[in-house]
């Protein structure tokens, strides 16, 4: 029987994979994708908790919808920023963006 714990573990694993991606990927777009994984990990938690603990109130599902909308806005801005920096550096590799240090 699959219960709340399975979903929470799935969410945590996904979150861990996302953090690993953000820290290890060098491509700006791949990093954005990893951030999306982390947001979706939180979404899984929200929906699972809503279903198993408080099925009477739809707070968790509501939160998940808000997160999806905000994530879409974030990605739209993110891709625009990556385009804008690509015009300067002709690269999306984060190692190339080092005009400012310490």
């Amino acid at each position, binding site marked *: 029987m699959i219960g709340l714990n399975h979903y929470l573990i799935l969410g945590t694993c996904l*979150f861990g994979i996302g953090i690993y991606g953000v820290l290890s990927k060098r491509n700006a777009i791949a990093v954005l994708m990893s951030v999306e994984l982390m947001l979706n990990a*939180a979404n899984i*938690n929200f929906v699972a*908790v809503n279903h198993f603990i408080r099925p009477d109130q739809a707070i968790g599902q509501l939160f998940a919808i*808000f997160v999806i909308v905000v994530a879409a806005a974030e990605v739209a801005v993110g891709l625009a920023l990556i385009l804008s*920096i690509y015009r*300067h550096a002709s690269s999306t590799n984060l190692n190339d963006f080092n005009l400012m*240090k310490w």
Partner: protein
Amino acid sequence: MGYLLLAPEMLLTVLGIVVLALGLILPQRGKKVTGAVAMIGTLGILVVVFWQFGYEAEFFQGVYGIDAYSHFFRVLFLSAALIIFAMAGNYLHLFSERQSEWYSLMLFATLGMIIMASSGDLITLYVGMELMTISFYILSAYLLDDGRSAEAGLKYLILGALSSAVMLFGISLIYASSGSTVFAVVYQTLQAQVVTQPVLIAGIILLIAGFAFKIALVPFHMWAPDIYQGAPTPVTAYLAVGSKAAAFAALLRILVTALPAAHYNWTMLLAILAAVTIITGNLIALAQRNVKRLLAYSSIAQAGYILVGLAASNVYGFKGVLFYAMLYVFSNIGAFAVATLVETQSGSSDFDAFSGLAKRAPMLAAIMTICMLSLAGIPPMAGFAGKFYLFSGAIQSGYLWLAFIGLIMSMVSVYYYLNVSRLMYIGKSSEQSVPVPAMARVALLVCLVGTLIIGIYPQPLSQFAEIAIQVLY
């Protein structure tokens, strides 16, 4: 008053959209109007907020609440936005035809901050925070021709999104252990629980980590210097003052109303973060050769001082947090305003650009010095009164060592603040004068007067902060 209490939020939304639309409709020559519309509108909304003082209401079963605490932060954010609009002036020419969008995004960022400070629910808080942060992603990358600005935008985007995701995961864990996202309900549910669940502890830690990113506390501060240096200077000023104060406002409200220290002792965690932040921020600032970067590290250290009040977790400390956040508006924006004007004239914010400023523009040099002395905490400037509240709060709750670290590091900070003054007064001068537009002059005077008056006569602001704090108990 009912829903009329939400008028400032609604008016701010309308104003943002109107400014955006005006920029699209008006021909190129008429676009200067948008700046005036934004400024007059913000001033009008500030008046509305003053007019609403004393009224309180809760909306949607505690999801959003207007009380003295919200009033305090509304005043703070709106006046910060207003001063920055006034001081930005000539700098905006760098944005060429995109000025009206700049005003509009600044207004939306302000709206996000106000929502953060008044939200009584984690969903509202999250949406407000993202409204603020996403506006700032765009604002930091606003100088399209400057590679550094684009780099700042991208770095802020990646680290900001990462921190939001971390915080969101923490929120999901708090929701899992309490079954609700409304602060008051979370408090009641958690109080009824006999054993503290490890899930909840993890949630609180992730939540505080997410906020620490926004406030730029060590070890979550790596983004701040790069973004402060690369972003357009007026945006940097708002980022340093507004987004920090908003994160503090939300953090304080959550910690006091949803997760009180009596049950989960987070004060030691915050005290250690504060100590590390104060030490690191001040020590790295010593080595900086660029004024914007110097102010970035100094603002990391300042965030540490404010956190001392939060760690103290008594009325004195909380009052200090609000008091300091308000005086920080005047002192820090004053310093950034001078940096903006010098950068507009010379195109650089390195130390060389400030050399001999006292001969070229005596008023600017004097205001910069006074603002920096205030940040260092020298009486009779405002910073002294603020630090007095913060550190006495810490001593009252037994964090004597924290107050000592704060005092010693304040002395260290005098060195790098006065180093800038030394350069301005003794350094070699080029003969170019620095033009100061009329509006920027008003903004500078407001900052100067604010810094001095709060320092000499702190009573009214202190009472205002105390009334705001009472709401939380």
